[in-house]
């Protein structure tokens, strides 16, 4: 799949932002007043910034409100509802903390649940795609949620929790890659089922429909060199989990180390999310002999 920067930024940043909101919702850290204001501003910048980035992906952003109508069937529509609900509930809860020094905890817990629900709905947009076997697995939501919760813990300054959760997210990431690598082969879709010519013999794409490129090839048939993929995976996992873990373990420079850990983690998640798209094989590529 074409790794569109707007979608990568959106899903990575808003994942972190909603992860932080979830931690704030359950009162970790139990901040109020100005400190709460800073935490909430950061969370909203990430979450809303991500959502705005995703608007650039649309052909007609001015009609975006229509996306709220089909929540019965569409995960994208559910994501729109969940994100708005999470942002509104957390805004009320945050206002209590910042302006009234009051923690309305039921609101916080609901907001935290809605924040994680938003991340789940985002991941389900990809998971539902049977056409992209690498995504069509429960490891996709596990991957998105574990990263969001771990990144949120890191941003919320919950050091012990962050260390455990980062290690866990790293393991989930590696398993997600490993199972994803076999997904296309074990999906049962290949050139023989695509063309149904397999009974005659082995099928080879002889001529594409046009000599030029097209939307389908640009959007769905992004091919990434295996060697680069392996290197980028190592970089992603180091930045996402190992470096932040080491920094959190280091006894010196606590605040600076934490800030560096956050940056490293974010860079790692962005790299992994880029790979999530760039390595995803859409079955339409089979018609073009590109798998």
């Amino acid at each position, binding site marked *: 799949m074409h790794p569109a920067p707007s979608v990568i930024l959106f899903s990575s940043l808003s994942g972190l932002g909603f992860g932080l909101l979830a931690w704030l919702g359950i009162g970790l850290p139990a901040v109020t007043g100005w400190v709460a204001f800073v935490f909430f501003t950061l969370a909203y910048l990430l979450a809303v910034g991500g959502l705005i980035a995703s608007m650039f992906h649309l052909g007609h952003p001015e009609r975006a409100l229509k*996306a709220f109508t089909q929540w019965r069937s569409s995960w994208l529509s559910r994501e729109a509802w969940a994100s708005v609900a999470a942002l509104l509930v957390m805004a009320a809860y945050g206002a209590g903390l910042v302006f009234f020094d009051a923690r309305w905890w039921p609101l916080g817990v609901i907001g935290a649940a809605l924040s994680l629900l938003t991340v789940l709905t985002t991941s389900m947009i990809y998971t539902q795609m049977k056409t992209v076997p690498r995504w069509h697995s429960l490891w996709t939501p596990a991957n998105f949620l574990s990263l969001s919760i771990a990144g949120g813990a890191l941003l919320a300054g919950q050091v012990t929790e962050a260390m455990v959760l980062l290690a866990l997210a790293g393991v989930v990431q590696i398993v997600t890659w490993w199972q994803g690598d076999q997904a296309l082969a074990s999906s049962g879709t290949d050139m023989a089922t695509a063309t149904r010519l397999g009974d005659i013999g082995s099928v*080879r794409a002889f001529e594409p429909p046009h000599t030029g490129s097209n939307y389908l090839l640009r959007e769905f048939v992004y091919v990434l060199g295996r060697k680069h993929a392996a290197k980028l995976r190592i970089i992603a996992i180091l930045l996402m989990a190992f470096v932040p873990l080491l920094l959190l373990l280091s006894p010196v420079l606590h605040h600076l180390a934490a800030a560096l850990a956050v940056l490293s983690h974010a860079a790692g998640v962005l790299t992994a999310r880029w790979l999530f798209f760039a390595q995803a094989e859409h079955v339409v590529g089979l018609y073009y002999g590109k798998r």
Partner: protein
Amino acid sequence: MTTLPQHTDRKLGLVIDLDTCVGCHACVISCKGWNTENYGAPLSDQSAYGADPSGTFLNRVHSYEVQPEVGTAHLVHFPKSCLHCDDAPCVTVCPTGASYKRVEDGIVLVNESDCIGCGLCAWACPYGAREMDVAEGVMKKCTLCVDRIYNENLPEEDREPACVRTCPANARHFGDLADPNSAVSQLVAERGGVDLMPEQGTKPVNKYLPPRARDQLQGPEDSGEIDVLAPFLAPVDTGPKGFLGWLDRTLEKL
């Protein structure tokens, strides 16, 4: 509404004969011609006369080479447009309700004025039947020429999809696949029509008729036959003679 209907009264669709399609691309052109100037946004081209031309098409013809265990390879031309699936994943993913499947005839359509151009429906289609128009930012797909098949302003014989009307090889057939007595249903039954990517669970309405078994082409070494004309086809002049021959041989020696 992007939830799918439980049942459609008819299942209008195409039956495509891979045995007779000659890969002329006439259907590609007539499809683009009709659909760029009628319903909805035109099918734009980008850099049509430049070095890297591309454009929106609702029907494309692939060509495959199929190599059997023994014998010569087959070349199969493979037209592909929307299959108007019964269980259309492109419809249910749409967040706006722009994509829908009609209850009366099962045609899958896009209401372009509701489409936000998120592209999700094209992701969900396994067949590459939907293309986002670069100029308009809305999703385009085959409409089964819904503006021809019911169009009373057209002569009766033109009330079928443009691709079907134009195909010189009669490789494309249009009709109601829900009616077992329709010509298309009988053709499917007779020729063993199949679904593309059945494992994707989309339940396509369009069916493909597989190529029939080919005659085996046999060379003289296999059959022991010798072409009666062969002696006459042998080259008569084996080399230059006379002065030219001398010149040729001399030059060879140098």
